[in-house]
């Protein structure tokens, strides 16, 4: 449907102020890392925001073409460093797809446990820093306190708190230590109690709603056009989640799990739990909805971890061993996208019969999500830029790779 477009660079002005070019970043408190935004502003109104990336580029893909898949695992950790488990999983499953490997049931459920826990941790960071972006410091610490508990669990599993390298092609580097599941359940219980607190401090806070509702509206069409995924896509009301809709290896991983894909469809969110109401000011696809989707996904993930613990307890046998470093890759290529906390994380691996992949490529969800920033931040106020950027929840390690 054709829409009459006005020149977005033209803004109403009361006083002739010079258009000011402002560098927001790469050292700025709310660019979530080393993103540099070049803002063209007229007073408080931003007429365009252009992201400049590459400050965290570490040649991860090129390195991947010089080491074996097993050795590249630590590099995937450093992509979305807030969700290392999910990055590990994406790479591991891609390599498994290339090599046509199957992992044991126990491994599958254990992977679900750690990945969903990491999704919760990542969403907690997103929620906390979003509060920070809007000037509210306290939720940040609430979120990080809960995240610490999850990191403690991960530390017990793999010895690392940020860069896990836990999931490897073919399996997992270790099984769970004794007593871990009980600790995990305790953690989930505490987490469940914190979610309403966060809803009270942010989701249903009047100022928060006014700062986010109707700001940075991303239409579903635009979201799909730009290749957005994850909560950004679902916040625009598109019910698409690779855990349900993905390629067979991904969907099969979650096949005996019950969970809702969180997205507002036909004006309502899934009603499997008690959630705070959607404020009337909120428009589908705005910052509020993107934030809300993340918060709701935390609850879903808590449920998923609970189910996975049950499945894990029921499944017998050992967890699968990862492949050897010297394991030769078959000729051919495999591409697989998994549902990482920030969106669809895709890996491509092309094998040429040696242990070293011939080509490695990572498709970053944050890269696509960030690319809508220019579009949805036109004509917003300066204070909306952190609000929009925070709601996109980017991690520069993944964008720049």
């Amino acid at each position, binding site marked *: *449907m054709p*829409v*009459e*477009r*006005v*020149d*977005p*660079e*033209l*803004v*109403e*002005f*009361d*006083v*002739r*102020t*010079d258009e000011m070019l402002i560098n927001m970043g790469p050292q700025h408190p709310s660019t979530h890392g080393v993103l540099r935004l070049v803002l063209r502003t007229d007073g408080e*109104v931003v*007429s365009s925001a252009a992201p400049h990336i590459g400050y965290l580029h570490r040649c991860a893909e090129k390195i991947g073409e010089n080491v074996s898949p097993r050795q590249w695992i630590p590099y995937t950790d450093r992509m979305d460093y807030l969700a290392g488990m999910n990055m590990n999983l994406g790479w591991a499953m891609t390599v498994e797809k290339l090599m046509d490997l199957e992992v044991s049931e126990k491994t599958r459920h254990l992977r679900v446990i750690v990945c969903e826990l990491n999704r919760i941790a990542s969403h907690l960071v997103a929620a906390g820093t979003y509060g920070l972006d809007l000037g509210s410091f306290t939720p940040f610490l609430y979120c990080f306190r809960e995240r610490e508990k999850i990191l403690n669990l991960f530390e017990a599993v793999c010895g690392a708190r940020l860069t896990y390298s836990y999931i490897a092609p073919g399996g997992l580097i270790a099984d769970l230590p004794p007593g871990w599941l009980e600790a995990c359940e305790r953690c989930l219980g505490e987490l469940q109690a914190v979610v309403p607190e966060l809803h009270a401090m942010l989701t249903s806070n009047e100022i928060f709603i006014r700062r986010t509702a*109707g700001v940075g*509206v*991303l*239409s579903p*069409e*635009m979201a799909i056009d730009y290749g957005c995924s994850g909560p950004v896509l679902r916040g625009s009301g598109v019910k698409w989640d690779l855990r349900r809709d993905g390629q067979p290896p991904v969907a099969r991983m979650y096949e005996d799990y019950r969970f809702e894909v969180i997205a507002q469809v036909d004006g309502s969110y899934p009603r499997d739990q008690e959630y705070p109401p959607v404020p009337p000011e909120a*428009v589908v*696809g705005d910052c509020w909805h993107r934030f809300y989707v993340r918060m709701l996904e935390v609850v879903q993930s808590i449920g998923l971890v609970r189910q996975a613990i049950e499945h894990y307890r029921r499944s017998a046998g050992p967890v699968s061993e990862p492949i050897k470093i010297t394991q030769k890759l078959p000729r051919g290529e495999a591409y697989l996208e998994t549902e990482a906390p920030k969106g669809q994380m895709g890996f491509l691996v092309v094998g040429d019969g040696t242990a070293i992949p011939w080509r490695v490529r990572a498709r970053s969800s944050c890269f696509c999500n960030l690319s809508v920033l220019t579009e*949805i931040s*036109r*004509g*917003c106020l300066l204070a909306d830029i952190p609000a929009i950027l925070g709601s996109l929840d980017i991690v520069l390690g993944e964008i720049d790779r």
Partner: protein
Amino acid sequence: MINWHTCFFLLFATITCAFAVAVVVSANVVRMAVCLIASLAAVSGLYFLAAADFVAAMQLMIYVGGTLVLLVFGVMLTARGPFVSMKITPANWLMAGLAGGALLILLLCAATSVDAWKTAAVAASAPAAEGGHTVAPIGMALLGIRVDALEQANPALRGGIAGYLLPFEIVSVHLLVVLVGAAHLARARRRRRPAEAVPDASRSA
């Protein structure tokens, strides 16, 4: 016996005059504004000394706190590189200096021409301390009632004392008109706001 009134008068008068001269001399418009603030704030000190406490507070509140902030705002809105300091020719300086100097001499002559003005009635510190209960009389005067009329010793002047209700009302209406007019004047350009267009486009696209 030190006359504190004199001390503080000298202090405030020096600040006032020095910064007033600095306003003239300074080429940078931002510094001019700063000097003007200092000068006018010191003027309010002079008002306090002259037992005009309500006027002094008003000077601080409206003039320094309101008008000058507005002025600084205007300075900052228009302070682009080339306009921060603009030079004029020495000939202009000379002309202005001559005119200003002549006026100054004229005013100084006038100020010192009356003998009664050169002698303070009493040791000036006492009334300054006692005086300054001007709030209520000023308020009443603005309502048209002159409570101080009875204190006027000179019966010839007593008849001339009138309330200020009409000027007060005129000034208040005038202020309203001015504010509306200023707001209208400053909003010179209107263009369509893209914020209205873009969300619509994205929603209906």
